[in-house]
């Protein structure tokens, strides 16, 4: 099953999520050391370090790969620090994979780590009237949850979804998260608690929206040949799709204040988020019917339902049925967010998409413990961030 565009997941590691008062470098080091140990390689074996940047931690955050390399001890390996909003971790994996496929490195360490203040994300300081992220806050007070509220209300209007449907997603993910030692929130939650939590941005209540969090995740990727030699080639990244939208965008994605006009252009048949997963499927020849599990960016419970349809687990409008039938719960046919998802982790921006791949790897190796998906052979991880970012990663057993 070796393919020219596959790379092997040699090892994975995480630092438990949640604010523990440490620096992002310390969180990242713990994850990196765990991934190196899991991979059975030493720091000296690493030929490239790719770091997901964090934009709220001073200069070391902008040069995350350098900060981590110095902390592990300078050993000469090239570094690449990258940023792609919520898709940062997938971007980092994509850069690592490109170097391996190019033959420029056999062993690459990919790390994402963050510390996050409580409350709403806010734009960086200064008066920035040419920055859409500044404008949306300054003129509309349109926080991330406000955009999520627009999408959730739209889904309710279009699909007839209810607040109770959304709450059922939270109940499902909290149950999975309660079984995951890396999750920040490990208590089960019932629907009533969700529906009684404070309204943040109608129709989304506090427990329908993912929190922000500290956290870190790391992956060691290797060339097929290197991994085979080390007998560590069980799990492969089969595709990474990190495309951008196609003009005209039919939805007002955040942080923008309007969609594109369709008067002068015909939109594609797929939305941007649909195209993320489908372009990954096409690249590797797998499809939604081949998936045993999925990790999707549940920035809100409503958005998890959107993803079911967008990644092809069901037809448009059938996500609620899939959910209520238990198909996407642990023990179902295709569990979604068996890790507990963002719902249980909170979001640590550059770490989250890497954590999704850690989860898929543990699942595909049968190492996921209490939240194991039995016999899993293939999974997809998807995410979306502001400014046109998003990615899908297909991971499969060899």
């Amino acid at each position: 099953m070796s393919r020219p565009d596959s790379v092997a997941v040699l090892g994975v590691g995480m630092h438990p999520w949640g604010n523990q008062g440490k620096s992002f470098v310390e969180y990242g080091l713990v994850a990196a050391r765990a991934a190196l140990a899991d991979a059975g390689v030493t720091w000296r074996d690493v030929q490239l370090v790719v770091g997901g940047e964090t934009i709220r931690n001073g200069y070391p955050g902008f040069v995350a790969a350098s900060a981590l390399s110095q902390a592990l001890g300078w050993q000469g390996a090239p570094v690449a620090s990258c940023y792609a909003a919520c898709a940062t971790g997938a971007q980092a994996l994509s850069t690592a994979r490109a170097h391996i496929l190019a033959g420029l490195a056999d062993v690459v360490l990919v790390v994402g780590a963050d510390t996050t203040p409580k409350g709403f994300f806010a734009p960086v300081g200064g008066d920035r009237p040419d920055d859409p992220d500044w404008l949306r806050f300054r003129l509309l007070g349109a926080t991330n949850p406000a955009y999520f509220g627009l999408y959730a209300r739209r889904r309710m209007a279009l699909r007839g979804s209810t607040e109770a449907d959304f709450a059922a997603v939270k109940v499902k993910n909290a149950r999975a998260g309660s079984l995951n030692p890396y999750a920040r929130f490990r208590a089960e939650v019932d629907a009533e608690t969700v529906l009684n939590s404070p309204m943040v941005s109608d129709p989304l209540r506090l427990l329908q929206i993912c929190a922000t969090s500290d956290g870190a995740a790391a992956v060691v990727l290797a060339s097929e040949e290197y991994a085979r030699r080390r007998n560590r080639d069980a799990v492969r990244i089969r595709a990474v799709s990190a495309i951008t939208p196609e003009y005209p965008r039919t939805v007002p994605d955040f942080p923008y204040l309007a969609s594109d006009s369709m008067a002068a252009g015909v939109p594609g048949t797929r939305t941007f988020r649909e195209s993320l997963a489908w372009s990954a499927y096409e690249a590797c020849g797998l499809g939604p019917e081949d998936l045993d599990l999925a990790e999707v960016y549940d920035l809100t419970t409503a958005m998890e339902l959107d993803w079911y349809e967008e990644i092809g687990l069901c037809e448009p409008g059938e996500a609620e049925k899939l959910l209520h039938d238990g198909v996407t719960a642990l023990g179902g046919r295709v569990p979604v967010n068996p890790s507990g998802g963002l719902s249980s982790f909170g979001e640590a921006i550059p770490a989250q998409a890497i954590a999704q791949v850690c989860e898929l790897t543990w699942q595909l190796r049968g190492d996921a413990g209490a939240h194991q998906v039995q016999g899993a052979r293939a999974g997809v991880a998807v995410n979306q961030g502001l400014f046109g970012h998003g990615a899908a990663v297909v991971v499969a057993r060899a």
Partner: protein
Amino acid sequence: MTDGIPAAPGTDTWFREGPDGFVLLAGRCTACGALSFPPRPIPGCPNPDCDALEQSVHPLSTTGSLWSYTDARYVPPPPYPRPPDTEFSPYALAAVELAAEQMIVLGQVAPDVAVSDLTVGMPMDLVPGVLVSSAGVEERVWNWRPSA
């Protein structure tokens, strides 16, 4: 502005209030007609197949249908203005689809309209709105409001 309220920061070219009322102004590519709202601050066209650099001013439709809505129950972080000596009041946000332009434009909903007054699909009108800066100064913005 006719009533002397200056445009909010960054919005100098975004709307005008004249004899024909209050309108949002998009940029319109002089070659392919592609619209941009807000108007692009830099030369060029949002259409990837168009190399043109020039844009003209294009007034947008002032009515549309409500594509979706939400509200803000907690005070947004800065730079959202926090006027002195005032309590924060929740306000609604609307995404309104303009039929002619086939385009969805976000905006705050007029402050006397609650989220419970809104329904997806309902007709909405553009109206002038006011934001009060953290220094207590009134600033002109645009609002959406259910059609009378």
